[in-house]
């Protein structure tokens, strides 16, 4: 699991230097965030960030309009949600007039790519957002934590150095952060926001700089024979309960209520709950994101049935990178590759 780190021992050394002061940095980052938001808030319509929830292991998105609430803002490895979807999905901003002040938003590296994609697709103009970029060393997957230790009533969760420290009804669990990071984080190439107005904290070192590391899980699937892959996906997708959390959490699934998996006009899917329906639903989700997905992993994070749905999009992302040399969410002026063409590419 930690191979990526061990391999690059030189980088590792430099990184751990930073991590030694991680807790302090985290605290400082949080304070820095509070200070910057406080300064900026009068010029903002609203600030979207993370706040602690009733579960210390998970944060919840928060929408701040008054200075009183700024103290609730937090940042760090427990802030897993990608907030950018709120900028474009109703009704979060229905009450915000289009000519109003900009909206402040906290983004991690991966979130910032979603933002770029949204700007690129003109759902958003750059001047409508004030971007508080937060370099990220990976976010905690609470399900991985629960698989390591049985938790009853977590009172607090803190990150110190390379460790996640939990106080569970008097018992203290010390878990290596590396072991409980989200799957998508382990192949992350863009831990630092690619677009931002201000940057909070120190920049992070990418865990991957090559396709092989980023798409290691895709390769793991591809190593299996075809029948095995089919069996794997049938088994995984069979668990799908069609709650559409993956779709709704995706910042680029902009159709939302008009999504064709629910409409009758046109009618792509029936109400049947067979594996074909589930396959087609996930095909629709994936194909609609082909060349657009920024790999933020929200779809997989929110799945109550723990289906590795991001993996499906990862494969398409890999195809786009290998076939067309395109990675989404990096260049606000680029055209998504399936919305354009090149007459010359006879052998793509």
């Amino acid at each position, binding site marked *: *699991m930690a191979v990526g780190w061990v391999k690059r021992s030189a980088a590792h050394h430099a990184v751990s230097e930073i991590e030694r002061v991680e807790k302090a940095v985290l605290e400082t980052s949080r304070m820095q965030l509070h200070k910057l938001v406080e300064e900026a808030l009068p010029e903002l319509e609203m600030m979207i960030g993370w706040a602690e929830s009733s579960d210390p292991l998970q944060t919840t998105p928060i929408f701040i309009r008054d200075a009183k609430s700024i103290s609730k803002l937090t940042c760090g490895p427990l802030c897993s949600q990608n907030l950018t979807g709120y900028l474009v999905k109703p009704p979060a901003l229905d009450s915000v007039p289009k000519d109003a002040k900009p909206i402040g938003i906290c983004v991690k590296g991966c979130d910032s790519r979603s933002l770029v994609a949204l700007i690129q697709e003109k759902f958003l103009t750059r001047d409508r957002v004030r971007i508080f970029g937060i370099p990220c060393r990976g976010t905690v997957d609470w399900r991985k934590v629960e698989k390591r230790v049985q938790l009853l009533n977590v009172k607090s969760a803190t990150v110190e150095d390379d460790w996640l420290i939990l106080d569970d009804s008097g018992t203290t669990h010390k878990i290596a952060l590396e072991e409980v990071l989200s*799957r998508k984080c*382990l*192949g992350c190439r863009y831990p630092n926001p690619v677009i931002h107005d201000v940057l909070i904290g120190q920049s992070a070192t990418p865990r991957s700089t090559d396709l092989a590391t980023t798409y*290691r*899980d*895709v390769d*793991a*699937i*591809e190593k*299996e024979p*075809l*029948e*095995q*892959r*089919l*069996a*794997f*996906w*049938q*088994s*995984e997708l*069979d668990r799908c309960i069609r709650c559409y959390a993956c779709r709704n959490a995706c910042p680029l699934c902009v159709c939302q209520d008009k999504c064709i998996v629910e409409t009758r006009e046109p009618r*792509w899917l029936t109400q049947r*709950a*067979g*594996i*074909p329906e589930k*396959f*087609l639903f996930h*095909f*629709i989700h*994936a*194909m609609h994101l*082909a*060349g657009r997905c920024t790999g933020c992993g929200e779809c997989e994070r929110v799945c109550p049935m723990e289906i*590795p749905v991001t*993996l*499906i999009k990862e*494969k*398409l992302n890999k*195809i*786009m990178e290998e*076939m*067309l040399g395109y990675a989404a969410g990096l260049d606000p002026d680029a055209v998504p*590759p*399936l919305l354009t*063409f*090149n*007459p010359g*590419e*006879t052998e*793509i």
Partner: protein
Amino acid sequence: MKDLSPRSSAPADETAATTQGIKIVGFLCNWCSYGGADTAGVCRFKQPTDLRVVRIPCTGRMDPLFIAKSLIYGVDGVLVSGCHPRDCHYAVGNFYARRRMEALKAFLPFMGIDTQRFRYTWVSASEGQQWQKVVTEFSEQIHRLGPNPGLKQRSGDHSIPSIALR
């Protein structure tokens, strides 16, 4: 009309016995490949009978989801054919289609669907012989693969070994 077909390339009769149950859907653009299929017919170029053609205005109309839907729901093969690049009736429809279908082609096997069940090709309205070749080859390929196993696994089988991810 005189039968112009070269006798040697008439595999239909021999394969007819094995065509039972195999169904191939062909999405053909109205301007080129549908015309090419017509030309092949006019020239009496014999072809296997498994193909069922859906006429579409342009391969640009092809949402890859039509292909995915067909294969997921058990059609044995999908053949998409349109105008040659640069000959598109709508100038660029097939350029869009090419990228989208290439992406799908690379994607299908990841989900466990045999990419050999899907083929796209360019055949003009005058290329009757080429059409015969395409249909014959693709039909034979699907026959070699046999019926689409589809998503036969029963819902609720939890014994499938998973693949280790990070």
